[in-house]
């Protein structure tokens, strides 16, 4: 994690300098934009970190590694895919959840499947999607993406 933080620090510093040399005004505008985006997510993000820290205190590591770990098999995979399809968690919030699940013993397969269904399959948003594309097309898209997410999870888990 420390290494990652340094990558982001150096990259952002380098890019800011580079951008500043090219165009001062654009750079200031970009920094401002970035700051306001950060300001908008800050409190919701901190709230989620609070929630994760409470849930992980209450749920013992053994439960997570039993149900979502490498030995959880098809049950773990399927439950991750179903939960990911049904829940509507904003992307930036799902990453700290995923990281803490992995640190508590969940497998990469389960986490990658969960993340992918979360992003690509939307049960709650299905009525809206059906308005845009029609019921049948929206249904086919969601089913295809559900199976693609399981394939992605299995391959990612195998490669990690």
């Amino acid at each position: 994690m420390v290494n990652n933080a340094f990558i982001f620090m150096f990259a952002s510093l380098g890019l800011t300098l580079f951008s500043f040399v090219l165009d001062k005004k654009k750079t200031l505008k970009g920094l401002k934009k970035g700051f306001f985006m950060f300001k908008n997510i800050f409190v919701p993000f901190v709230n989620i970190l609070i929630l994760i820290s409470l849930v992980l205190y209450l749920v013992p590591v053994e439960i997570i590694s039993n149900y979502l770990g490498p030995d959880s098999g098809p049950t773990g995979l399927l439950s991750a895919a179903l939960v990911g399809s049904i829940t509507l968690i904003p992307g930036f919030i799902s990453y700290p959840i995923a990281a803490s699940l992995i640190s508590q013993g969940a497998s990469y397969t389960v986490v990658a499947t969960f993340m992918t269904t979360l992003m690509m399959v939307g049960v709650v948003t299905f009525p809206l999607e059906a308005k845009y594309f029609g019921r049948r097309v929206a249904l086919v898209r969601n089913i295809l993406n559900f199976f693609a997410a399981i394939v992605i999870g299995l391959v990612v888990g195998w490669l990690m």
Partner: protein
Amino acid sequence: MNKKIESSKKYVWLAMYLAATAISFAAGFEPGKIAYTNFSEYFIEMISFIPFLFIIIGLFDVWFPKEKIEAHIGRQSGITGIIVVILLAMLQAGPLYGAFPVAYILYTKGASARNIFIYLGAFSSLKIPMLGIEIGYLGLKFTLVRTLVSLPLFIAIGFLMEWYLRDKKFAVNKV
């Protein structure tokens, strides 16, 4: 006045948590202390890279405005069309349902069904801001592996949807 209440509402949860933590420490309540230790680790982890990530995102936004790419989108076919929709998707942010209105715009500009579904796939998992957060939390290797495994599957889904719709009338409706 209403606005003030609205904007202070989002701090309620945070304030309650801080109060509960203060009480836990004052009263020596162990679970509260442990939860706080966990929280402070997560908080330091977050604050050590997310602000820098947003600097990168903000700069990206002014140098590569998505409107510019949107203007070039249309009936391109083959590889060019696929690359253009994927690039456009990578510059977006937000949840999948935010991609449907853009799919409608793509449709009115003459994009094929295949490219519209490739766009949705790329939108859901290749957005640059999200990739940044993913690298920070799950590592570069996980992010690269997931992205490279997902990409061919999204493109395949685009082709499958095109095949499924070959003798049907496909339209994206304005909502």
